[in-house]
């Protein structure tokens, strides 16, 4: 489970987080949804928590910061030759 302090938000949406001591950047939100319910199984202390268990979930693709690299892939049309080289140039 996450601690809130380990999540970095922008406009209420997570953008980075720390997991197993490693800091991740979120590259794509695949989906986001809300869940709640099942309170009747959990409220055995009798405290009436109207919306307990209400959760927002994000399913994301993320990678450790720095693990993401930019490459250029090139194909020479005449001979069908492929080349790959790391790059730092903006796209």
């Amino acid at each position, binding site marked *: 489970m996450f601690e809130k302090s380990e999540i970095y938000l922008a406009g209420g949406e997570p953008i980075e987080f720390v997991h197993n001591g490693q800091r991740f950047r979120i590259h794509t939100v695949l989906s*986001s*949804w809300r869940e709640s319910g099942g309170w009747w199984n959990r409220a*055995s202390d009798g405290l009436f928590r109207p919306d307990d268990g209400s959760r927002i979930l994000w399913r994301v693709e993320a990678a450790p910061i720095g693990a993401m690299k930019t490459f250029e892939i090139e194909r020479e049309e005449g001979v069908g030759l492929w080349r790959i080289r790391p790059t730092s140039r903006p796209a």
Partner: protein
Amino acid sequence: MSFTHLHVASGFSFKYGTTLPDALVAQARDFGMHSMALTDRDGLSGAIRFTQSCLENQISPIIGIDISYENQTRITLLATPGKGWSSLVRVVTQLKNYGAPCDLNFLKQNSNYTKNLLALHGPDSEISRALTSRRYDKALLIFNSTRDLFLDQSIECVSHLIYGDGPKSTTHAARMLNFARDHDLPAVLTNAVRMKSREDAPIADVLDATRHLLPLHKKVVERKNAEAFLKNSDEMVFLAEKIAAAAGERNAKQLLKTTKDWAERAVLSPQSDIGLGSIHLPEPHVVGAKSQLELTAQLRSRAYAGVNWRYGDLSSEVEERLNKELSIIASLGYESYFLTVADITDRARNSGIRVAARGSGAGSLVCHLLGISGVEPLSLGLLMERFCSPLRKALPDIDIDVESARRLEIYDQVFESYQQRCATVAMFDKYRARHAIRDVGAALSLPPMEIDLVAKSLPYIRARNISQALENLPELKNLNLTSGNWKMAIGLAERLDGLPRNLAMHPCAVVISDIGLYDRAPIETNASNYPMVQWDKDDVEAIGLLKLDILGVRMQSALAYSVSEIKRTSNLSLDLDGIPLDDEKTFELIQSTKTLGLFQIESPGQRELVGKFAPQSFTDLIIDISLFRPGPVKSDMITPFLNARQGWKAREIFHPDLLEILDDTEGVVVFHEQVIEIIAKLGGVSLAEADEKRRALGDKEGQQEVCDWFFPAATARGYSLEIVTKMWEVLRAFASFGFCKAHAAAFALPTYQSAWLKAHYPAAFLAGVLTHDPGMYPKRLILDEARRFGVKIEKLDINKSDRSYRVENDSSIRLALADVSGISDGEIDAILSNRPFVDLADFVHRSGVSRPTCEALLMVGAFDALYPDTLNHRDLLLHLNDLYKWSRTSSKALLNLSGSQLTFGFTPELSKTGLPDLRAYEQVRNEIEFLGMDVSHHMMEFYAEFLNQIGAVKSSDLIKQRSNSSVLVAGVKVILQTPPIRSGKRVIFVTLDDGNGCSDATFFEDAQRSYAETLYNSKLLLVRGNLRRTGARGVSIRATGAWDLSAAYEKWRNLALCE
């Protein structure tokens, strides 16, 4: 920007929506929204109160309906201005008759109406289904199939932000939006709301569980999260953007714009569309007039004809009052109202059904002359203005009381003659404490036994007060109500408070309107097969439908029965409505407090009041009935009245001008009519204006307004400030407790009639009471009362007893077959048509009555007359046994051995066995078991010796006891009551019957602690208390102890045996 919700279910989506319309509207207002829709599921029950609430909160109402469509899908329809509302109403009515979910066929049949409606295809629609399975072609086909059936239709995008890509997920909403864009269809955004806020989600879950009659489980609960609430505009814009983005649109502007356009197209006018504040009475031709003008003339001539009937000749007083009333009615255009009600009462009377008006209508002379009300208003000082006033543009309320046993006959007459113009009215069966606990308990799977115990112990209170009530219920101490689950259950149950559970038929209200009724009100056929408006009585009043309460009153049946018994036995046709109202014998009876069986004045409290008061006139009866209500009791109006009446204290009348108004009530303000007259006199205004002031006194704000007017107005007319101040105090204090004198007078009439009958024809009257059971006392007590009035009670006789109680020889009552336990209507019919019977064998052979019934008849002595005294019940019982054995074997023999040598002529012989007869107490036990009452002996007879020895006082001798002496009384517990009392503390009244009459004892709080349990649990009681004389015939006992009589008797007997 302000968003408009187009898809909102309120609590009137029974067992689905969590919030009442007014709370939703208030929330929308707080969000700064300008309009809002109510689209309840499959009904319009919330529509009127929603509209009223919109009007108050300056929200423009949009009304629609979320209907179930074939294949478990749903579609939402919205009314448009103009013809939309009546079309929606018609569609709902038609759909209720359709008997199946809506489908294409239904829509085609009703396209006349649906073409005035907008349709939304939302996440539960067939189109959504098709899109979920990627059948884009099918989705378009469905959309096109209904294209010409509606004014317009759109795709409804809903995202509850749930996981996945199914309905109510953002992905699905985007797919719906894309579908709309691909085919150039309009698309709107809604939130498919069913609750006010996220916090209501558990209530929604409980309602889901209750609706499915299953315990709470993920599969039972419809929601996946708590998003189906009334979101504010920003939250909705956020959703719009999410959906638009997911659909690949650059922004949400178009989605929000279309939603706004659609909202504007569907906004209705509360007045011109829905009809708030309008009035729709039957058309003139319904009551036989060609025009409004002719209607006026017809009412006038009928009223004048009534003068002849009621008064003989026309006095100037009557003429003046009549003209005044007629001009008020004409100015309001209510002629057809009066004539319609008169028509209904006429029809009833023509079929020989007793009718009486109740309520303020009895104050109108026109009502009296048209035969609606039997009370003569002028001599009693009843005012028309309390009932119907030119200053109040609301339909006056006439209620009529009819014989309970024949009430539905009147319903049938009304429906037969008014047909499409009338319907019954619904009432909303709302969650109260018991239902709430039961439903929540079942949803949470609490032990059924515990749920049952808690539910049964709860008094009939609002659900929100459950925890408070549970604190005072000692019988629940053994349950652990503080356990987690119970605490949660109680918390949830309290939150169900006031939610409607379903529609029920109002027990007595019908609406009568013009031919447009079915255009204005959704009507379904209810369980009793009557058409029923989906609204309650406040709703129908708000849209101006004439509401008539037709109440079944058992006393009216009892009175009718008595009159028919008098006619049958002495061939005397009695006009009960024409008897003089000053009969001495009648008032003697009332003053004697022997009022058991009488209307309104038979309760212990009333008997005490009547004893102190000793009413001497019909007006006194009216006062008596008005005083005996919670308000006057709480504010102690009775004491000053009685003090002045008995001459113990001088009456207080502050000014000679008030003498005439307050004379009858000894200076005490008892009636609304008096308040009206005082205001009119001191303030110098008309009675109609004075009634408006009186109504304003009901709330704080109005009181201040009236106060600001009253002081200058009255002082300007020359009344001293002191008198004005005093009178103001009285008005302010009593305005809320006062009673409508016309209503009390209407009630006093059957009271008087019942007393008159009891005084002159006790046997016939009590036969009526026994047959129709109108009162609060068990029949055994009425039997005792009959004996005390010299009426002989004849036991059941198989050849003489009828279905009901019959008078024999003018002075005895024959018990009724209908009271034999387990007997069916068919068995009674068989007995009546096959008699006389010569003996038991004959009866068994020919009557076709079941063996248990036959035994019951035998045990209560129905065959005694057929046999000599030498044969007793045990002999007969054995004989009956033989007879049945024989009839079984002989019928078997007939089946199996036809033609054999069995002697069919053989019947078992009845012989004396020598067994002793049943003892008296066994006989009484049988009577109680099979008849529900003791007939041959009074239960208390068996305790006579004991009671004698311990010095218990007979109820009939109480009056001879000294005041302040300590007494013991005993008897069968007849009534246990905890009525409202001035201090608000609980007081228990118990009434005991000892065969000589009734004694009433009062247990105050100090005496309850040790004895309440005995009082509640014992049937036979011994009570100790201090006796006090309270008036000429009045006694009261302040109880100091109570014991179970049979336990005390056993102890005494054991002691006696030891000695």
